[in-house]
């Protein structure tokens, strides 16, 4: 069973503390991250994705093995969807996905099959051969999600996956995430509270680089709405 552990993870940006001694264990399922701007959500996601190096004492373990020791094999189980959409504007959607498939070390034949399937699932087939610079915000969001899903990663890190997407596409994306979550650790960060409410199995509240509350969604939301819970923790922000 896949298992991701953070032990005493801290991160300083010069003198500013972005993450303060976070310890947490992620198992298969959808993990929703909530918190105001600057709470440390993106920093945490980037550390898990291996993009940022945590401070000295921090430990990140995947299936009981420290991530730095795993190196390439850890990166081959990661799917990362960034928040910003400024990526490879000169490529067409299909070229971008092929490039990412190549970077993920997926064989050409398998890549073609996966790309066609993802383009179809995310309703991108018609615009696959247009340059990304001409895409709308929602299209860019979907192509970024498609690249994250390439190679069937075991850990999926999604930063604002439904931002700027129309209602119909949001439903498609949410269904897709739900569908693939059976055997994956999905870390979902979003400001859209209803998405977390509908998708997340467990919810993590982050504030000033610390986890202020975490637990199963059913337990946390018993008799209350997520929005009220959010206001309880972050209403004074």
């Amino acid at each position, binding site marked *: 069973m896949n298992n991701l552990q953070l032990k005493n993870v801290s991160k300083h940006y010069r003198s500013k503390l972005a993450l303060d001694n976070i310890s947490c264990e992620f198992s298969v399922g959808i993990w929703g991250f909530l918190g105001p701007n600057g709470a440390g959500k993106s920093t945490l996601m*980037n550390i898990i*994705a*291996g*993009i940022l190096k945590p401070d000295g004492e921090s430990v990140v373990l995947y299936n009981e093995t420290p991530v730095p020791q795993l190196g*390439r*094999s850890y*990166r*081959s189980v*990661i799917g*990362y969807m*960034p928040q*910003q*959409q*400024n*990526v*490879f504007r*000169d*490529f*067409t959607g*299909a*070229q971008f*996905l*092929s*490039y*990412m*498939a*190549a*970077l*993920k*070390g*997926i*064989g*050409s034949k398998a*890549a*073609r099959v996966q*790309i*066609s399937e993802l383009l179809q699932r995310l309703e991108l087939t018609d615009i*696959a*051969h*247009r340059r990304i610079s*001409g895409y709308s915000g929602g299209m860019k969001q979907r192509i970024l999600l498609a*690249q994250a899903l390439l*190679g069937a990663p075991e850990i999926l890190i999604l930063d604002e996956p439904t931002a700027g997407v129309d209602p119909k596409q949001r439903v498609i994306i949410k269904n897709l995430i739900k569908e693939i979550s059976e055997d994956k650790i999905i870390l979902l960060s979003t400001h859209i509270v209803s998405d977390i409410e509908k998708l997340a199995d467990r919810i993590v509240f982050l504030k000033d680089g610390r986890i202020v509350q975490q637990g199963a969604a059913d337990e946390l939301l018993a008799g209350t709405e997520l929005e009220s819970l959010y206001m309880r923790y972050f209403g004074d922000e």
Partner: protein
Amino acid sequence: MMKLFFYEIRKLFKGKAPLIFLLVILSAALFFDLRQEWDRYYPYEAYAKLCNDVLSLPEEERENYLKENADKYNAFYSFELGMISSDDEKNAQYILQYENGAETIYTDSFFTEYSLFSDTYEQNTDTCHYSQHISDILAQAEKMSELSVFGGKNSFEQKNISDTAAAYKVLNGLTPRFADTAGLNFLLSFSADKLLILTAAVFGAFVMVMDERRTGSLRIENATKNGRTFLALSKTGAVFVWCAANSILLLAVKLIITAARYDISAIFLPIQSLSGFINCPYALSTAEYIVIASALGCIAAFVCAMLFAFVFTLKKYIIGGAAGVIFTVLQFAAYERLDGLSSLGVFKYFNISAALHFSETGMTFTTVNLFQEPVDTFTVSVTFLLIFALLFCAAFVFSFAGSYMDFQGISLNIRSSRIPSANLFYREVYRVFITKGGLAVLILLLCVTVYDVVNDDVHYEAVDGYYELYLNDIEQMTLSETADFIKEEEKHFSDLQNKMSELNESYQNGKITSGSYVTAATIIQSELAKRPALRLLSEQYRYISEEEPSANFVYYKKIDKYMNFDNSKDDIKSSLYTQLALVLVICTLFSGFSVEERRLISCTADGKGKLLIIRTYICILSAAAIFLCTALPEMVVLLSHNRSSDLSAALQSLTYFRGLNANISIGFYFVLMYLLRLASALFTALLIAFIGITVKEQKTVIVLCSVIILLPTASALLFGPEAFPLIYELERNALLRRFLI
């Protein structure tokens, strides 16, 4: 309104694309300016020294000195070629001087010396006798006006004559002076700037209208209170500022390059002081003339920009754009092809091209026939500019203010609908060479190199030609036969020399007339002209027979060129092209990614180790491809211009390598030379890769590469060994020569 105007200017000058474009324009201007060679037979240094030497002389003495030397060296050059010259007393004296060992003063051959004195004499005469020249024009005009063949008093011809006279009459009293004006001629002679300024103008219009229309920004702007007419006027103003800034930039680059290469201290003298500008009808200093030429160029570019700005507002902008391009090309064709005196003559000057070519059209007073009225070309050009500037500005403002510019993206559906291959090597190559334009850089580099190689002439002296003829004579001979041939030729020359001495004696004793003397002496000289070539052949024979049997008789002239023993600096230019292409291609391979792109890549399985290895392979292959683009055309010409026997001959066959102890052929030396160049290209590519990996930010990488790599080479090209001695030596393959000898 002013605020809007300043915001529009800010858009143009602070945007990433315009800044990159400015950099490209600057690089292109630098490239073309550096590429432009001094177009005379003699080096600029010789001209500058002669000007310096004769400037202190009184006018009359200067004129006599220049005339005397021009005649003398013309005669020497004729004797050298064995051509018959006029049989007067003076020529006889020159033959005597030539016989007693004539030498050049400023250059290394009689022909270049003659060209130098002749050109300088002409320039001096033009400036010293300027008032006489004006009087002659006026007198000629008066004479012509009296001739009935030029029609009645109100005919176009008569009016034209009187207008011409009036234009030059005001120049009476103007005092052009003799000075070193080569730099100023260089400054006014170049034409690539015209294309660059037009490109910049169209780009400005594109950014201001088309780009905003494409991205949808115009929709937001159009929906505001001032987003129609006021915005259109602000955009018009901003485009003008953009054109002006580009004109100033191009002029500044040109001035800096010219000042670095030539003396431009005469810039405040009247324009008539420059060679070729004696008939210029304007009482202006050269500086004023240059400013007016640049200003007209700027306004012409603005007219072109507004034409395209208008086109970009149209619904069918592609058709409009094509029409705009045709209209512009037709104007250039009209300027180049139409005869100014024909019935369509007015269209030669009633266009953008004539305004851009003011430095040419202003060289003399010209009129066109406009309904039987002579109108000077300057007035025609300025009128065109004003009419069309107003017309296109109005068209743009009305069209911009009144239309709904919903962008309908039109793209040619030539892309494959297949999912591209997910091979990392292939995808990286595609990204760098197709998406980022690396292939265009390679094609451009190949075109420039082929153009350079095809247009690269070897300058031959008489001795080089005769030596080649001797090599043809001895081609099938053995060494001993060659020795006999040389002896025979030496004896022949010795006999001729004796005859010449006898002839000199007879002439000095008054036994023969100067006419007979010159005729006979010229015939003998035509034979004796081969003597220096025989000396070379004889010396080579001595070296082969006594010192180095493996050496051979080779035709050195073309080999010298490709071994960079001449003074052309072609090798440095070629290195600069290679380095520029390397910077452009390798930079995009290793840098220029946004933060998100870097993050996306770095969290993939092959985004670290494997990607770096693949990029390094591509970097090496790109360097090799770029090297081939510059070296291959050269190699083809090298092989086709040199005899295979010359290339297979021992390196010691060349004078420079006589001290060499190794057994290397000339061809092998070339192989070594090209291998060294390949190694240097690979090293440069890896250096750029290292900078790219370390710095990441593309603009910073380009700046660093320019300072570390391009600047020293450009300085070596511009200033010679003084700027960067080490780079200069390295570029000229001195390292290989030193290593071998």
